[in-house]
Protein backbone atom coordinates (compact mmCIF):
# COMPACT_ATOMS: atom_id res chain seq x y z
CA UNK A 1 0.00 0.00 0.00
CA UNK A 2 2.85 2.34 0.81
CA UNK A 3 3.94 3.10 -2.75
CA UNK A 4 0.47 4.01 -3.92
CA UNK A 5 0.36 7.72 -4.61
CA UNK A 6 -2.66 9.90 -3.93
CA UNK A 7 -5.08 9.60 -6.77
CA UNK A 8 -4.03 6.13 -7.74
CA UNK A 9 -5.92 4.31 -5.12
CA UNK A 10 -9.08 4.45 -7.18
CA UNK A 11 -7.81 2.56 -10.20
CA UNK A 12 -8.98 -0.79 -8.91
CA UNK A 13 -11.45 -1.12 -6.10
CA UNK A 14 -10.29 -3.76 -3.64
CA UNK A 15 -12.65 -6.68 -3.91
CA UNK A 16 -13.16 -7.15 -0.20
CA UNK A 17 -14.46 -3.58 0.06
CA UNK A 18 -17.00 -4.05 -2.69
CA UNK A 19 -19.78 -6.29 -1.46
CA UNK A 20 -21.45 -8.23 -4.25
CA UNK A 21 -24.85 -7.21 -3.01
CA UNK A 22 -24.00 -3.59 -3.81
CA UNK A 23 -23.35 -4.42 -7.42
CA UNK A 24 -26.11 -6.90 -8.04
CA UNK A 25 -29.06 -5.62 -6.14
CA UNK A 26 -30.72 -2.35 -6.95
CA UNK A 27 -33.53 -1.44 -4.62
CA UNK A 28 -36.23 -0.65 -7.13
CA UNK A 29 -38.79 0.41 -4.56
CA UNK A 30 -36.54 2.89 -2.79
CA UNK A 31 -38.03 6.36 -2.75
CA UNK A 32 -35.41 8.81 -4.02
CA UNK A 33 -34.60 11.21 -1.24
CA UNK A 34 -34.62 14.91 -1.83
CA UNK A 35 -31.37 16.80 -2.04
CA UNK A 36 -32.06 18.54 1.28
CA UNK A 37 -32.87 15.31 3.09
CA UNK A 38 -29.64 13.74 1.90
CA UNK A 39 -27.70 16.81 2.93
CA UNK A 40 -29.28 16.75 6.37
CA UNK A 41 -28.32 13.08 6.72
CA UNK A 42 -24.70 13.88 5.93
CA UNK A 43 -24.79 16.95 8.16
CA UNK A 44 -25.93 14.87 11.13
CA UNK A 45 -22.94 12.60 10.69
CA UNK A 46 -20.46 15.48 10.75
CA UNK A 47 -18.72 16.19 14.06
CA UNK A 48 -17.94 19.69 12.78
CA UNK A 49 -21.66 20.37 12.54
CA UNK A 50 -22.30 19.31 16.13
CA UNK A 51 -19.42 21.39 17.46
CA UNK A 52 -20.75 24.43 15.59
CA UNK A 53 -24.29 23.73 16.81
CA UNK A 54 -23.19 23.62 20.44
CA UNK A 55 -21.38 26.97 20.07
CA UNK A 56 -24.34 28.59 18.35
CA UNK A 57 -26.82 27.12 20.83
CA UNK A 58 -24.88 28.48 23.82
CA UNK A 59 -24.69 31.82 22.05
CA UNK A 60 -28.43 31.82 21.40
CA UNK A 61 -29.16 31.15 25.07
CA UNK A 62 -26.74 33.93 26.00
CA UNK A 63 -28.56 36.35 23.75
CA UNK A 64 -32.02 35.35 24.93
CA UNK A 65 -31.36 34.91 28.66
CA UNK A 66 -28.22 36.81 29.68
CA UNK A 67 -29.23 36.57 33.34
CA UNK A 68 -28.53 32.82 33.25
CA UNK A 69 -24.84 33.58 32.80
CA UNK A 70 -24.34 36.57 35.05
CA UNK A 71 -26.22 38.42 37.74
CA UNK A 72 -24.23 41.63 37.38
CA UNK A 73 -25.47 44.70 35.53
CA UNK A 74 -23.27 45.44 32.47
CA UNK A 75 -23.99 49.16 32.72
CA UNK A 76 -23.30 49.51 36.45
CA UNK A 77 -19.88 51.12 36.70
CA UNK A 78 -18.22 52.19 39.92
CA UNK A 79 -14.85 53.85 39.55
CA UNK A 80 -13.94 52.46 42.96
CA UNK A 81 -13.96 49.06 41.27
CA UNK A 82 -11.52 50.07 38.53
CA UNK A 83 -9.49 47.00 37.50
CA UNK A 84 -10.67 45.20 40.63
CA UNK A 85 -9.61 41.54 40.47
CA UNK A 86 -12.00 38.64 40.00
CA UNK A 87 -14.36 37.90 42.87
CA UNK A 88 -17.41 35.74 43.63
CA UNK A 89 -19.91 36.25 40.79
CA UNK A 90 -17.50 38.42 38.83
CA UNK A 91 -15.19 35.80 37.25
CA UNK A 92 -12.98 38.19 35.26
CA UNK A 93 -12.96 41.26 37.47
CA UNK A 94 -13.67 44.82 36.37
CA UNK A 95 -12.61 47.10 33.54
CA UNK A 96 -11.33 50.69 33.41
CA UNK A 97 -14.77 52.12 34.16
CA UNK A 98 -15.31 49.71 37.01
CA UNK A 99 -17.90 47.63 35.15
CA UNK A 100 -18.04 43.83 35.31
CA UNK A 101 -16.10 42.47 32.32
CA UNK A 102 -17.96 39.15 32.12
CA UNK A 103 -21.38 40.83 32.37
CA UNK A 104 -20.47 43.21 29.56
CA UNK A 105 -19.32 40.28 27.44
CA UNK A 106 -22.51 38.31 28.07
CA UNK A 107 -24.79 41.25 27.29
CA UNK A 108 -22.59 42.32 24.36
CA UNK A 109 -23.49 39.12 22.49
CA UNK A 110 -26.87 40.57 21.67
CA UNK A 111 -25.62 43.53 19.61
CA UNK A 112 -23.01 41.50 17.72
CA UNK A 113 -25.42 38.69 16.88
CA UNK A 114 -28.14 41.15 15.89
CA UNK A 115 -25.81 42.91 13.47
CA UNK A 116 -24.48 39.66 12.01
CA UNK A 117 -27.86 37.99 11.64
CA UNK A 118 -29.79 40.96 10.23
CA UNK A 119 -26.99 42.00 7.87
CA UNK A 120 -26.75 38.45 6.53
CA UNK A 121 -30.53 38.19 6.08
CA UNK A 122 -30.63 41.52 4.23
CA UNK A 123 -27.63 40.69 2.05
CA UNK A 124 -28.98 37.26 1.15
CA UNK A 125 -32.45 38.63 0.41
CA UNK A 126 -31.12 41.28 -1.98
CA UNK A 127 -28.55 38.93 -3.48
CA UNK A 128 -30.84 35.94 -4.07
CA UNK A 129 -33.62 37.98 -5.66
CA UNK A 130 -31.35 40.07 -7.89
CA UNK A 131 -29.12 37.13 -8.81
CA UNK A 132 -32.07 34.86 -9.65
CA UNK A 133 -33.77 37.54 -11.74
CA UNK A 134 -30.55 38.36 -13.58
CA UNK A 135 -29.71 34.73 -14.32
CA UNK A 136 -33.24 33.67 -15.23
CA UNK A 137 -34.37 36.54 -17.44
CA UNK A 138 -31.01 37.43 -18.96
CA UNK A 139 -30.85 40.14 -21.60
CA UNK A 140 -31.17 43.75 -20.52
CA UNK A 141 -32.21 42.87 -16.94
CA UNK A 142 -29.08 40.77 -16.56
CA UNK A 143 -26.85 43.50 -17.97
CA UNK A 144 -28.34 46.13 -15.67
CA UNK A 145 -28.06 44.03 -12.51
CA UNK A 146 -24.58 42.76 -13.37
CA UNK A 147 -23.19 46.22 -14.10
CA UNK A 148 -24.80 47.60 -10.93
CA UNK A 149 -23.25 44.80 -8.90
CA UNK A 150 -19.87 45.56 -10.52
CA UNK A 151 -20.15 49.15 -9.29
CA UNK A 152 -20.95 48.20 -5.70
CA UNK A 153 -18.41 45.38 -5.72
CA UNK A 154 -15.60 47.68 -6.81
CA UNK A 155 -15.78 49.79 -3.63
CA UNK A 156 -14.01 48.07 -0.72
CA UNK A 157 -16.60 47.05 1.90
CA UNK A 158 -14.88 48.56 4.93
CA UNK A 159 -14.30 51.91 3.22
CA UNK A 160 -17.89 52.08 1.98
CA UNK A 161 -19.23 51.24 5.45
CA UNK A 162 -17.12 53.98 6.98
CA UNK A 163 -18.55 56.55 4.57
CA UNK A 164 -22.17 55.43 5.05
CA UNK A 165 -22.02 55.21 8.83
CA UNK A 166 -20.12 58.46 9.23
CA UNK A 167 -22.74 60.28 7.15
CA UNK A 168 -25.70 58.73 8.99
CA UNK A 169 -24.04 59.44 12.34
CA UNK A 170 -24.05 63.11 11.39
CA UNK A 171 -27.67 63.09 10.26
CA UNK A 172 -29.09 61.09 13.22
CA UNK A 173 -26.65 61.46 16.11
CA UNK A 174 -28.68 59.45 18.64
CA UNK A 175 -30.96 56.64 17.63
CA UNK A 176 -31.21 53.94 20.33
CA UNK A 177 -30.22 50.26 20.18
CA UNK A 178 -32.16 49.06 17.15
CA UNK A 179 -31.59 52.28 15.23
CA UNK A 180 -27.84 51.90 15.67
CA UNK A 181 -27.91 48.22 14.75
CA UNK A 182 -29.95 48.97 11.63
CA UNK A 183 -27.46 51.58 10.42
CA UNK A 184 -24.57 49.10 10.58
CA UNK A 185 -26.77 46.44 8.96
CA UNK A 186 -27.74 48.82 6.17
CA UNK A 187 -24.14 49.84 5.49
CA UNK A 188 -22.98 46.22 5.34
CA UNK A 189 -25.89 44.94 3.25
CA UNK A 190 -25.87 47.75 0.69
CA UNK A 191 -22.26 47.05 -0.24
CA UNK A 192 -22.02 43.27 0.33
CA UNK A 193 -24.93 42.02 -1.83
CA UNK A 194 -23.00 41.72 -5.12
CA UNK A 195 -21.11 38.71 -3.78
CA UNK A 196 -24.33 36.75 -3.29
CA UNK A 197 -25.83 38.11 -6.51
CA UNK A 198 -22.91 36.80 -8.58
CA UNK A 199 -23.05 33.39 -6.95
CA UNK A 200 -26.82 33.12 -7.35
CA UNK A 201 -26.72 34.29 -10.95
CA UNK A 202 -24.09 31.68 -11.80
CA UNK A 203 -26.02 28.91 -10.08
CA UNK A 204 -29.31 29.86 -11.75
CA UNK A 205 -27.64 29.94 -15.18
CA UNK A 206 -26.44 26.40 -14.54
CA UNK A 207 -29.71 25.05 -13.17
CA UNK A 208 -32.14 26.65 -15.62
CA UNK A 209 -30.99 24.44 -18.51
CA UNK A 210 -31.38 21.17 -16.63
CA UNK A 211 -33.98 18.61 -17.67
CA UNK A 212 -36.29 18.94 -14.70
CA UNK A 213 -36.88 22.59 -15.55
CA UNK A 214 -37.87 21.62 -19.09
CA UNK A 215 -40.09 18.91 -17.61
CA UNK A 216 -41.82 21.45 -15.38
CA UNK A 217 -42.34 23.75 -18.36
CA UNK A 218 -43.73 20.82 -20.34
CA UNK A 219 -46.38 20.06 -17.75
CA UNK A 220 -47.43 23.69 -17.85
CA UNK A 221 -45.57 25.43 -15.03
CA UNK A 222 -45.47 29.18 -15.56
CA UNK A 223 -42.16 31.02 -15.76
CA UNK A 224 -42.46 32.46 -12.28
CA UNK A 225 -43.57 29.17 -10.74
CA UNK A 226 -40.65 27.47 -12.41
CA UNK A 227 -38.22 30.04 -11.04
CA UNK A 228 -39.67 29.93 -7.55
CA UNK A 229 -40.33 26.23 -7.13
CA UNK A 230 -37.67 24.54 -9.22
CA UNK A 231 -34.78 26.81 -10.11
CA UNK A 232 -34.16 28.86 -6.96
CA UNK A 233 -34.31 25.94 -4.48
CA UNK A 234 -31.81 24.00 -6.60
CA UNK A 235 -29.47 26.94 -6.98
CA UNK A 236 -29.40 27.87 -3.29
CA UNK A 237 -26.69 25.62 -1.92
CA UNK A 238 -23.61 27.77 -2.69
CA UNK A 239 -25.46 30.79 -1.28
CA UNK A 240 -26.26 28.99 1.97
CA UNK A 241 -22.59 28.18 2.51
CA UNK A 242 -21.53 31.76 1.77
CA UNK A 243 -24.24 33.19 3.99
CA UNK A 244 -23.16 31.15 6.99
CA UNK A 245 -19.56 32.25 6.64
CA UNK A 246 -20.68 35.81 5.88
CA UNK A 247 -22.48 35.94 9.23
CA UNK A 248 -19.17 35.42 10.98
CA UNK A 249 -17.44 37.95 8.75
CA UNK A 250 -20.11 40.56 9.50
CA UNK A 251 -19.67 40.09 13.25
CA UNK A 252 -15.94 40.70 12.81
CA UNK A 253 -16.72 43.72 10.59
CA UNK A 254 -18.92 45.23 13.28
CA UNK A 255 -16.08 44.99 15.77
CA UNK A 256 -13.67 46.51 13.23
CA UNK A 257 -16.07 49.40 12.66
CA UNK A 258 -16.49 49.90 16.41
CA UNK A 259 -12.71 49.88 16.70
CA UNK A 260 -12.67 52.83 14.30
CA UNK A 261 -15.40 54.51 16.38
CA UNK A 262 -17.99 54.00 13.63
CA UNK A 263 -19.81 50.84 14.69
CA UNK A 264 -22.39 50.97 17.43
CA UNK A 265 -22.43 54.07 19.67
CA UNK A 266 -20.45 53.95 22.90
CA UNK A 267 -23.50 53.63 25.15
CA UNK A 268 -24.45 50.27 23.61
CA UNK A 269 -22.88 47.20 25.17
CA UNK A 270 -21.14 45.32 22.35
CA UNK A 271 -17.98 43.29 21.87
CA UNK A 272 -16.70 45.77 19.34
CA UNK A 273 -17.04 48.64 21.79
CA UNK A 274 -15.41 46.70 24.62
CA UNK A 275 -12.48 45.78 22.36
CA UNK A 276 -12.23 49.34 21.17
CA UNK A 277 -12.12 50.53 24.80
CA UNK A 278 -9.45 47.98 25.59
CA UNK A 279 -7.02 49.14 22.90
CA UNK A 280 -5.24 51.78 25.00
CA UNK A 281 -4.73 49.26 27.80
CA UNK A 282 -3.35 46.68 25.40
CA UNK A 283 -0.93 49.22 23.99
CA UNK A 284 0.69 49.53 27.41
CA UNK A 285 0.32 45.82 28.11
CA UNK A 286 -1.77 46.25 31.25
CA UNK A 287 -4.93 44.43 32.29
CA UNK A 288 -5.03 42.32 29.17
CA UNK A 289 -8.05 40.45 30.57
CA UNK A 290 -10.17 43.43 29.50
CA UNK A 291 -9.38 42.50 25.91
CA UNK A 292 -9.15 38.71 26.16
CA UNK A 293 -12.67 38.09 27.41
CA UNK A 294 -14.65 39.87 24.67
CA UNK A 295 -12.06 38.87 22.04
CA UNK A 296 -12.38 35.19 22.93
CA UNK A 297 -16.17 35.39 22.98
CA UNK A 298 -16.13 37.02 19.55
CA UNK A 299 -13.61 34.56 18.11
CA UNK A 300 -15.55 31.53 19.38
CA UNK A 301 -18.79 32.93 17.97
CA UNK A 302 -17.29 33.60 14.56
CA UNK A 303 -15.61 30.19 14.65
CA UNK A 304 -19.02 28.64 15.31
CA UNK A 305 -20.49 30.14 12.14
CA UNK A 306 -17.40 29.44 10.03
CA UNK A 307 -17.45 25.79 11.18
CA UNK A 308 -21.16 25.57 10.42
CA UNK A 309 -20.44 26.91 6.93
CA UNK A 310 -17.73 24.29 6.42
CA UNK A 311 -20.00 21.49 7.62
CA UNK A 312 -22.85 22.65 5.38
CA UNK A 313 -20.47 22.93 2.42
CA UNK A 314 -19.34 19.36 2.88
CA UNK A 315 -22.91 18.14 3.31
CA UNK A 316 -24.18 19.93 0.21
CA UNK A 317 -21.25 19.00 -1.98
CA UNK A 318 -20.44 15.33 -1.36
CA UNK A 319 -17.93 15.36 -4.25
CA UNK A 320 -15.58 17.56 -2.24
CA UNK A 321 -15.44 14.97 0.53
CA UNK A 322 -12.85 12.34 0.88
Amino acid at each position, binding site marked *: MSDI*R*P*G*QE*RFVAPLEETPLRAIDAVDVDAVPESQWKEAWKRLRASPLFWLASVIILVLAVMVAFPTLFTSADPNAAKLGNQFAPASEGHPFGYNFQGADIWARTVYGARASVAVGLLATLATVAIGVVSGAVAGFFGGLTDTLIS*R*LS*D*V*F*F*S*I*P*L*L*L*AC*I*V*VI*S*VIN*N*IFPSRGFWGSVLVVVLALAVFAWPQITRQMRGAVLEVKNLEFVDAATAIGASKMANLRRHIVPNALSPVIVSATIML*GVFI*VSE*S*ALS*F*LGLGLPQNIVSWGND*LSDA*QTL*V*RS*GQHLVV*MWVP*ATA*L*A*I*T*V*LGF*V*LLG*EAVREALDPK*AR*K
Partner: protein
Amino acid sequence: MWWYVAKRLLQAIPVFLGATLIIFVLTKLRPGDPILALAGNKPISPEVREALRDQFHLNDFIGIQWLYFLKDVVTFNPDFVGLDGQPVFEKISNALPVTGTLALMALAMDAVIGIVVGTIAGLRRNGWFDSVTLVLSLVLLSIPIFVVGFVLQFVLGVKLGIFSPTVGGDWSVGSLLLPAFVLAIANIATTTRLTRTSVANNLTADHVRTARAKGLSERVVIRNHVLRNSLVPVVTYIGINLGSLMAGAIITEGIFNVQGIGNLAFQAVNRGDTPLTVSVVAVMVMLYVFMSLVVDLLYAVLDPRIRYV
Protein backbone atom coordinates in the same frame (compact mmCIF):
# COMPACT_ATOMS: atom_id res chain seq x y z
CA MET B 1 -5.60 40.04 -26.61
CA TRP B 2 -5.22 43.81 -26.97
CA TRP B 3 -8.76 43.99 -28.23
CA TYR B 4 -9.83 42.19 -25.06
CA VAL B 5 -7.85 44.62 -22.87
CA ALA B 6 -9.43 47.59 -24.64
CA LYS B 7 -12.89 46.11 -24.21
CA ARG B 8 -12.32 45.55 -20.51
CA LEU B 9 -11.01 49.08 -20.01
CA LEU B 10 -14.10 50.45 -21.75
CA GLN B 11 -16.30 48.37 -19.44
CA ALA B 12 -14.46 49.86 -16.48
CA ILE B 13 -15.68 53.38 -17.30
CA PRO B 14 -19.28 52.91 -16.09
CA VAL B 15 -17.99 51.14 -12.96
CA PHE B 16 -15.73 54.09 -12.21
CA LEU B 17 -18.50 56.62 -12.87
CA GLY B 18 -21.05 54.73 -10.79
CA ALA B 19 -18.77 54.16 -7.83
CA THR B 20 -17.63 57.78 -7.63
CA LEU B 21 -21.20 59.02 -8.05
CA ILE B 22 -22.45 56.81 -5.17
CA ILE B 23 -19.73 57.94 -2.76
CA PHE B 24 -20.02 61.55 -3.94
CA VAL B 25 -23.76 61.70 -3.26
CA LEU B 26 -23.32 59.88 0.07
CA THR B 27 -20.74 62.32 1.37
CA LYS B 28 -22.89 65.25 0.19
CA LEU B 29 -25.79 63.96 2.30
CA ARG B 30 -23.78 64.78 5.40
CA PRO B 31 -25.33 67.79 7.11
CA GLY B 32 -23.33 70.82 8.21
CA ASP B 33 -21.74 73.62 6.25
CA PRO B 34 -18.45 72.52 4.67
CA ILE B 35 -17.36 76.17 4.37
CA LEU B 36 -17.71 76.60 8.14
CA ALA B 37 -15.48 73.55 8.62
CA LEU B 38 -12.98 75.00 6.15
CA ALA B 39 -12.85 78.28 8.09
CA GLY B 40 -12.25 76.39 11.31
CA ASN B 41 -15.77 77.09 12.65
CA LYS B 42 -14.99 80.81 12.88
CA PRO B 43 -17.37 83.48 11.59
CA ILE B 44 -16.76 84.37 7.99
CA SER B 45 -17.91 87.33 5.93
CA PRO B 46 -20.70 86.74 3.41
CA GLU B 47 -18.46 87.81 0.50
CA VAL B 48 -15.70 85.35 1.37
CA ARG B 49 -18.30 82.64 1.93
CA GLU B 50 -19.83 83.26 -1.47
CA ALA B 51 -16.40 83.23 -3.11
CA LEU B 52 -15.53 79.94 -1.42
CA ARG B 53 -18.90 78.40 -2.29
CA ASP B 54 -18.22 79.39 -5.86
CA GLN B 55 -14.73 77.94 -5.78
CA PHE B 56 -16.01 74.57 -4.56
CA HIS B 57 -19.07 74.74 -6.86
CA LEU B 58 -21.30 74.33 -3.82
CA ASN B 59 -24.11 76.38 -5.37
CA ASP B 60 -24.58 74.02 -8.26
CA PHE B 61 -26.84 71.02 -8.54
CA ILE B 62 -25.21 67.90 -7.07
CA GLY B 63 -24.86 66.19 -10.45
CA ILE B 64 -23.02 69.23 -11.82
CA GLN B 65 -20.72 69.21 -8.77
CA TRP B 66 -19.91 65.60 -9.53
CA LEU B 67 -19.07 66.50 -13.14
CA TYR B 68 -16.72 69.23 -11.90
CA PHE B 69 -15.10 66.63 -9.66
CA LEU B 70 -14.71 64.23 -12.59
CA LYS B 71 -13.12 66.99 -14.68
CA ASP B 72 -10.57 67.67 -11.95
CA VAL B 73 -9.79 64.00 -11.50
CA VAL B 74 -9.55 63.08 -15.16
CA THR B 75 -7.32 66.07 -16.01
CA PHE B 76 -5.18 65.53 -12.86
CA ASN B 77 -5.77 69.18 -12.02
CA PRO B 78 -2.96 70.17 -9.64
CA ASP B 79 -5.15 72.95 -8.20
CA PHE B 80 -7.85 70.45 -7.21
CA VAL B 81 -8.02 70.97 -3.45
CA GLY B 82 -9.76 69.22 -0.58
CA LEU B 83 -11.82 71.09 1.99
CA ASP B 84 -8.67 71.91 3.94
CA GLY B 85 -7.32 73.81 0.93
CA GLN B 86 -4.53 71.31 0.26
CA PRO B 87 -4.10 69.76 -3.16
CA VAL B 88 -5.70 66.32 -3.32
CA PHE B 89 -3.32 64.72 -5.79
CA GLU B 90 -0.29 65.74 -3.77
CA LYS B 91 -1.77 64.17 -0.63
CA ILE B 92 -2.67 60.96 -2.42
CA SER B 93 0.69 60.65 -4.15
CA ASN B 94 2.39 61.17 -0.79
CA ALA B 95 0.31 58.46 0.88
CA LEU B 96 0.15 55.95 -1.95
CA PRO B 97 3.75 54.62 -1.90
CA VAL B 98 3.64 53.46 1.72
CA THR B 99 0.20 51.84 1.43
CA GLY B 100 1.10 50.35 -1.93
CA THR B 101 4.25 48.82 -0.48
CA LEU B 102 2.32 47.60 2.55
CA ALA B 103 -0.40 46.01 0.41
CA LEU B 104 2.06 44.44 -2.03
CA MET B 105 4.12 43.02 0.83
CA ALA B 106 0.93 41.60 2.35
CA LEU B 107 0.00 40.21 -1.06
CA ALA B 108 3.40 38.56 -1.44
CA MET B 109 3.21 37.02 2.05
CA ASP B 110 -0.32 35.87 1.31
CA ALA B 111 0.75 34.26 -1.97
CA VAL B 112 3.91 32.59 -0.71
CA ILE B 113 2.68 31.32 2.66
CA GLY B 114 -0.83 30.52 1.44
CA ILE B 115 0.22 28.59 -1.65
CA VAL B 116 3.10 26.69 -0.03
CA VAL B 117 1.16 25.67 3.08
CA GLY B 118 -2.01 25.00 1.08
CA THR B 119 -0.16 22.80 -1.41
CA ILE B 120 1.48 20.71 1.30
CA ALA B 121 -1.85 20.32 3.07
CA GLY B 122 -3.56 19.39 -0.20
CA LEU B 123 -0.93 16.81 -1.17
CA ARG B 124 -1.17 15.13 2.22
CA ARG B 125 -4.88 15.47 2.63
CA ASN B 126 -6.25 14.37 5.99
CA GLY B 127 -2.74 14.01 7.41
CA TRP B 128 -1.68 15.76 10.59
CA PHE B 129 -0.28 18.78 8.72
CA ASP B 130 -3.60 19.22 6.94
CA SER B 131 -5.58 19.01 10.18
CA VAL B 132 -3.34 21.51 11.97
CA THR B 133 -3.55 23.98 9.07
CA LEU B 134 -7.31 23.61 8.93
CA VAL B 135 -7.76 24.41 12.62
CA LEU B 136 -5.20 27.22 12.50
CA SER B 137 -6.72 28.87 9.44
CA LEU B 138 -10.24 28.73 10.89
CA VAL B 139 -9.03 30.26 14.16
CA LEU B 140 -7.15 33.01 12.32
CA LEU B 141 -10.28 33.79 10.31
CA SER B 142 -12.27 34.21 13.51
CA ILE B 143 -10.09 36.66 15.41
CA PRO B 144 -10.58 40.35 14.57
CA ILE B 145 -7.58 41.78 12.76
CA PHE B 146 -7.02 44.56 15.28
CA VAL B 147 -6.79 42.13 18.19
CA VAL B 148 -4.10 40.18 16.34
CA GLY B 149 -2.45 43.46 15.42
CA PHE B 150 -2.29 44.76 18.98
CA VAL B 151 -1.10 41.46 20.39
CA LEU B 152 1.67 41.06 17.80
CA GLN B 153 2.64 44.71 18.16
CA PHE B 154 2.90 44.31 21.91
CA VAL B 155 4.65 40.94 21.96
CA LEU B 156 6.97 41.16 18.94
CA GLY B 157 7.39 44.91 18.80
CA VAL B 158 7.40 46.14 22.38
CA LYS B 159 8.32 43.16 24.58
CA LEU B 160 10.75 41.26 22.34
CA GLY B 161 11.78 44.17 20.13
CA ILE B 162 12.18 41.99 17.02
CA PHE B 163 10.14 44.28 14.79
CA SER B 164 9.62 48.00 14.96
CA PRO B 165 6.29 48.51 16.78
CA THR B 166 5.28 51.65 14.87
CA VAL B 167 6.08 52.96 11.43
CA GLY B 168 5.53 56.71 11.46
CA GLY B 169 6.16 59.12 8.60
CA ASP B 170 9.68 57.95 7.85
CA TRP B 171 8.92 54.42 6.74
CA SER B 172 11.11 51.62 5.46
CA VAL B 173 10.36 48.15 4.13
CA GLY B 174 11.75 46.61 7.34
CA SER B 175 9.39 48.59 9.55
CA LEU B 176 6.46 47.50 7.38
CA LEU B 177 7.12 43.77 7.86
CA LEU B 178 4.92 43.36 10.92
CA PRO B 179 2.01 45.52 9.67
CA ALA B 180 2.09 43.69 6.34
CA PHE B 181 1.92 40.34 8.07
CA VAL B 182 -1.00 41.47 10.25
CA LEU B 183 -2.76 42.77 7.16
CA ALA B 184 -2.16 39.49 5.34
CA ILE B 185 -3.29 37.10 8.10
CA ALA B 186 -6.97 36.79 7.18
CA ASN B 187 -6.10 36.39 3.50
CA ILE B 188 -3.42 33.80 4.22
CA ALA B 189 -6.02 31.67 5.97
CA THR B 190 -8.39 31.82 3.00
CA THR B 191 -5.65 31.32 0.39
CA THR B 192 -4.42 28.25 2.25
CA ARG B 193 -7.90 26.71 2.34
CA LEU B 194 -8.49 27.51 -1.30
CA THR B 195 -5.16 26.08 -2.46
CA ARG B 196 -5.63 22.98 -0.36
CA THR B 197 -9.09 22.23 -1.79
CA SER B 198 -7.96 23.00 -5.31
CA VAL B 199 -4.83 20.83 -5.11
CA ALA B 200 -6.75 17.97 -3.52
CA ASN B 201 -9.39 18.09 -6.26
CA ASN B 202 -6.80 18.21 -9.02
CA LEU B 203 -4.87 15.25 -7.64
CA THR B 204 -7.66 12.92 -8.73
CA ALA B 205 -8.25 14.64 -12.10
CA ASP B 206 -7.91 12.69 -15.34
CA HIS B 207 -5.02 14.69 -16.73
CA VAL B 208 -2.97 14.01 -13.59
CA ARG B 209 -3.68 10.31 -13.92
CA THR B 210 -2.59 10.48 -17.56
CA ALA B 211 0.61 12.29 -16.60
CA ARG B 212 1.40 9.57 -14.08
CA ALA B 213 0.53 6.88 -16.60
CA LYS B 214 3.03 8.45 -19.01
CA GLY B 215 5.63 7.79 -16.36
CA LEU B 216 6.46 11.38 -15.49
CA SER B 217 8.28 11.88 -12.23
CA GLU B 218 6.20 12.86 -9.23
CA ARG B 219 7.91 16.29 -9.11
CA VAL B 220 6.98 17.09 -12.69
CA VAL B 221 3.44 15.83 -12.19
CA ILE B 222 2.95 18.02 -9.13
CA ARG B 223 4.59 21.10 -10.61
CA ASN B 224 3.25 21.09 -14.15
CA HIS B 225 -0.02 19.25 -13.88
CA VAL B 226 -1.37 19.66 -10.36
CA LEU B 227 -0.06 23.04 -9.24
CA ARG B 228 -0.53 24.92 -12.46
CA ASN B 229 -4.18 23.91 -12.70
CA SER B 230 -4.82 24.39 -9.02
CA LEU B 231 -3.58 27.94 -9.06
CA VAL B 232 -6.31 29.37 -11.30
CA PRO B 233 -8.88 30.03 -8.52
CA VAL B 234 -6.11 30.94 -6.07
CA VAL B 235 -4.70 33.63 -8.33
CA THR B 236 -8.16 35.15 -8.68
CA TYR B 237 -8.58 35.34 -4.95
CA ILE B 238 -5.14 36.80 -4.28
CA GLY B 239 -5.29 39.35 -7.10
CA ILE B 240 -8.82 40.58 -6.53
CA ASN B 241 -7.99 41.27 -2.91
CA LEU B 242 -5.40 43.99 -3.46
CA GLY B 243 -8.18 46.57 -3.21
CA SER B 244 -9.68 45.12 -0.04
CA LEU B 245 -6.17 44.85 1.41
CA MET B 246 -5.76 48.57 0.91
CA ALA B 247 -9.11 49.17 2.59
CA GLY B 248 -8.17 46.79 5.40
CA ALA B 249 -5.08 48.94 5.74
CA ILE B 250 -7.34 51.53 7.40
CA ILE B 251 -7.18 49.43 10.56
CA THR B 252 -3.60 48.21 10.24
CA GLU B 253 -2.38 51.71 9.52
CA GLY B 254 -4.22 52.95 12.58
CA ILE B 255 -2.55 50.37 14.83
CA PHE B 256 0.98 50.85 13.51
CA ASN B 257 0.72 54.58 12.76
CA VAL B 258 1.37 54.33 9.03
CA GLN B 259 0.73 57.61 7.18
CA GLY B 260 -0.91 55.95 4.21
CA ILE B 261 -4.08 55.92 2.13
CA GLY B 262 -6.14 54.24 4.83
CA ASN B 263 -5.32 56.94 7.34
CA LEU B 264 -5.99 59.59 4.72
CA ALA B 265 -9.37 58.08 3.86
CA PHE B 266 -10.38 57.78 7.50
CA GLN B 267 -9.49 61.40 8.25
CA ALA B 268 -11.21 62.62 5.10
CA VAL B 269 -14.44 60.75 5.94
CA ASN B 270 -14.44 62.02 9.51
CA ARG B 271 -13.91 65.62 8.38
CA GLY B 272 -16.60 65.36 5.73
CA ASP B 273 -14.03 66.24 3.08
CA THR B 274 -15.91 65.20 -0.06
CA PRO B 275 -13.22 65.84 -2.70
CA LEU B 276 -10.57 63.88 -0.81
CA THR B 277 -12.90 61.01 0.22
CA VAL B 278 -14.21 60.48 -3.29
CA SER B 279 -10.72 60.74 -4.77
CA VAL B 280 -9.42 58.02 -2.45
CA VAL B 281 -12.38 55.81 -3.33
CA ALA B 282 -11.68 56.51 -7.00
CA VAL B 283 -8.10 55.32 -6.55
CA MET B 284 -9.31 52.10 -4.87
CA VAL B 285 -11.89 51.46 -7.58
CA MET B 286 -9.33 51.96 -10.34
CA LEU B 287 -6.99 49.62 -8.54
CA TYR B 288 -9.73 46.98 -8.32
CA VAL B 289 -10.53 47.29 -12.02
CA PHE B 290 -6.85 47.07 -12.92
CA MET B 291 -6.23 44.05 -10.71
CA SER B 292 -9.23 42.13 -12.00
CA LEU B 293 -7.96 42.73 -15.54
CA VAL B 294 -4.49 41.49 -14.56
CA VAL B 295 -6.04 38.40 -12.98
CA ASP B 296 -8.08 37.66 -16.09
CA LEU B 297 -4.98 37.97 -18.27
CA LEU B 298 -3.06 35.68 -15.91
CA TYR B 299 -5.71 33.03 -16.52
CA ALA B 300 -4.47 32.66 -20.07
CA VAL B 301 -0.94 32.05 -18.79
CA LEU B 302 -2.08 29.43 -16.30
CA ASP B 303 -4.74 27.78 -18.41
CA PRO B 304 -3.93 27.54 -22.14
CA ARG B 305 -7.53 26.55 -22.86
CA ILE B 306 -8.60 30.14 -22.17
CA ARG B 307 -8.40 32.50 -25.12
CA TYR B 308 -9.49 36.09 -25.21
CA VAL B 309 -11.65 37.46 -27.96
